[in-house]
């Protein structure tokens, strides 16, 4: 139904503000390239070492994406479509890598197998960090596959193989492709793992160009290439997300059809899952435990560890709150006051999501020096950087939960005498609260794990868990890393557990 209601200014203004800050990095990049001129830009881009960089980045992205899809789809399938025991536990264990930062996992592998350094190590670590991005959406989509269709396929003589490959996976291919693109974006923008594995791709080289006397022209030119690659992926992703819906009449699903697994098959499936969990969770956890027990060259200072915990938690909390407050008007605007301005605002927040943290950080350093002098090298600028990076997580989560709540409830509220803003506060927000909280948890998790932006924007002299891990790991003082790593894993594990629980509960309600 067409609703010609304009968004109130109390919604539009904060939303607009959110859109503007997320566009800061893009403005910086364009400004840099324009400033140094096309000649300087093309000189940077069209040279052998840049070409080699492109090839290396492409190889890494492609390999990690392919492996992540294979593992992620397999993991989604065994946790939803088979009758294997302990499916819920398996799903939670398999999603734990989300809580482990890629650089930590990289250092854990390196401290055990120093020879892994390079391409192989980067592929291994990034795949283990990324397959949950495929597993979670595919598992959710597989749960929605109509069991009656599977029964029909069976009655028409389809084998288990046919059911899996011709029916189930066909229907969830949107989720698979969507997950794969998320993985590709992640790999393009990852800094910690490739830097730890000393595999030269864009992000690491940009960081180097920035550190070595701040060569802004080279950093900006390379960032531009990275942004273009990311933009292509984002466009692909949104086009695929728009397509493919499941046709289904009626809504009654009571049962879920599962492939009855025999005992030996179950053992094999468990074994494979156990291997994935061991590599993705076991190695980092065991390494960290080993580190804690080792003697350190530098005495571990409990006070410093505690301080880092507090700092990380603070930054995470502030970012989560700020991102939620900015995302709320954007989400409400795009769902309840759909118009081209609100849609444009919502879209624009996704642009920064495609920007690697390193690019966002450099552009905010630039903006900080020019525009935001008072907060340069202060906590607010770091929080701003994290908000720019992770705002889309909050927007997506809030948007979905508002879409799912009925507009009739708000109309009832209006008819009972509550104005637009009061209705938003007393009806829209309370009903969407689970989604809002979920989004905040996602942002907090991402912020606590985040490395490059924190490295560049943190207030002088302060260390977060992530930067402490980075600082000691790069000099292979793993004993000193231990306590920080334990703290980070625990701090990241809490939001991850909340998110897994939400996924599982949602899955339940889909089934009942």
């Amino acid at each position: 139904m067409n609703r010609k209601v304009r968004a109130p200014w109390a919604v539009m203004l904060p939303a607009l503000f959110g859109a503007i800050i997320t566009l800061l990095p893009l403005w910086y990049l364009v400004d840099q390239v324009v400033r140094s001129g096309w000649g300087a830009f093309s000189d940077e881009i069209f040279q052998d070492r840049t070409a080699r960089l492109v090839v290396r980045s492409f190889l890494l992205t492609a390999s990690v994406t392919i492996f992540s899809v294979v593992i992620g789809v397999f993991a989604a399938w065994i946790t939803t479509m088979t009758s294997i025991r302990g499916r819920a536990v398996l799903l939670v264990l398999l999603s734990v890598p989300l809580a482990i930062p890629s650089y930590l996992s990289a250092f854990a592998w390196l401290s055990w197998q120093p020879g892994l350094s390079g391409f192989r190590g980067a592929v291994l670590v990034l795949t283990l960090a990324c397959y949950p991005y495929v597993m979670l959406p595919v598992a959710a989509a597989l749960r929605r596959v109509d069991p009656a269709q599977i029964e029909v396929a069976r009655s028409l003589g389809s084998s288990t193989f046919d059911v899996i490959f011709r029916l189930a996976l066909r229907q969830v291919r949107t989720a698979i492709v969507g997950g794969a693109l998320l993985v590709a974006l992640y790999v393009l923008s990852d800094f910690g793992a490739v830097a730890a594995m000393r595999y030269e791709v864009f992000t690491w080289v940009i960081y180097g160009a920035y550190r070595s006397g701040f060569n802004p022209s080279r950093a900006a030119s390379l960032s531009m290439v990275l942004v273009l690659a990311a933009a292509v992926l984002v466009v692909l992703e949104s086009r695929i997300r728009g397509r493919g819906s499941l046709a289904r009449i009626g809504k009654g699903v009571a049962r879920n059809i599962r492939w009855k697994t025999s005992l030996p098959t179950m053992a094999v499936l468990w074994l494979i899952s156990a291997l994935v969990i061991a590599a993705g969770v076991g190695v980092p956890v065991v390494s960290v435990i080993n580190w804690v027990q080792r003697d350190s060259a530098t005495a571990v200072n409990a006070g410093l560890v505690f301080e880092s915990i507090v700092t990380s938690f603070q930054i995470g909390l502030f970012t989560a709150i700020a991102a939620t407050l900015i995302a709320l008007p954007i989400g409400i605007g795009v769902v309840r006051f759909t118009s081209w301005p609100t849609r444009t605002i919502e879209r624009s927040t996704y642009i920064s999501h495609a920007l690697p943290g390193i690019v966002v950080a450099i552009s905010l350093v630039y903006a900080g020096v020019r525009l935001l002098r008072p907060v340069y090298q202060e906590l607010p600028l770091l929080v701003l950087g994290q908000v720019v990076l992770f705002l889309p997580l909050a927007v997506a989560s809030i948007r979905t939960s508002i879409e799912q709540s009925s507009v009739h409830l708000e109309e009832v509220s209006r008819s009972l005498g509550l104005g637009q803003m009061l209705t938003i506060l007393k009806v829209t927000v309370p009903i969407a609260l689970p989604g809002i909280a979920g989004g905040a948890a996602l942002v907090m998790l991402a912020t606590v794990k985040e490395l490059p932006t924190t490295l560049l924007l943190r207030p002088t002299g302060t260390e977060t868990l992530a930067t402490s891990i980075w600082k000691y790991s790069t000099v292979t003082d793993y004993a000193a890393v231990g306590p920080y790593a334990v703290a980070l894993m625990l701090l990241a594990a809490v939001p991850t557990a909340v998110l897994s629980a939400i996924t599982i509960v949602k899955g339940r309600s889909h089934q009942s």
Partner: protein
Amino acid sequence: MSTPALVVRGVSHSYGNHRVLDDINLVVEQGSLTAILGPSGGGKTTLLRLISGFEQPDVGEIEIAGRVVVSAHTTSVPPEKRGVTIVPQEGSLFPHLTVAGNIAFGLRHTSSAERKKRVADLLDMIGLTGFENRRPEELSGGMQQRVALARALAPSPDLILLDEPFSALDTSMREQVREEVMATLRNAGATAVWVTHDQQEALSTADQVAVMLHGHIAQTADPVTLYRAPVRRDVAEFVGDAVVLRGTVHGSDGQVHCGLGNLPIANNVGVGEVDVLLRPEQLVTTKADSHAHGVGVATMSRFFGHDGIVVVRLPTDELVEMRLHAMNLPQPGDSVAITVNGPVLAFNRL
């Protein structure tokens, strides 16, 4: 007479090029129940949305309790300031609030003691005393609908709008909930307008029925007038079952000649070719004697238990469907004599 609770004057509304409402006029007196009756997709819900302020009319004027809320000359009064509450199809209770919280939602500028008392009174009125702290999902569909009604009644609005309030309920409980809701509205002295596509519901409960066909109101009248003296053939056929025969009116003697002989006419009709409309309950079978209006041959008969349906072919080759007691239901081939009770409706052919 007091100020009407609602006056709609010449309201039209389009979605794009599709005109869903065309020159709607309606007056609703205070304390009355008005049903807007029409087939699905006829623009009924849109009319409610215009009255409550969630859509704006292209042209026309709406007045609530003597106050113009939307017209060509004034800015539209927003929904929250109209004094019109709504009960959506599925009740739409706030899931994050208790039953008491839902009912008290619109009571904002009252003391908490007054609010408590009002909630208790309303719960008593809808027979749900003791359910204050229940959550909406713990209630049956009928209970939810009653709470939604109490919520709409709470601020004592000038007008309550109900959008197909019973159609989401199971058939088994629909009638009972309808009775309860209508009794509650009457006890509260509320003015209500509800839309429905159920003829029986509208005719049996409303003070006034507005029949809405193809985006305009074809007739507004009390149920008896609407059924007995519809102004148009399509209205007559929409509000009840009908048998239609060809006929001719020769003069101003109030008689029509058709396959069932000469019959008295109930309404005004001009001379010429007409459609004669008979209600099934007007038709009875008699022994073939001189009093019968016509005699035909049964072509089909279907048994339903306590009654049955017989289709009779008249000498004019027209078919008449009759609902008869099952005892002595004529069988195909039997000769059936038909008598028509009361005057019939006739509409000039176009």
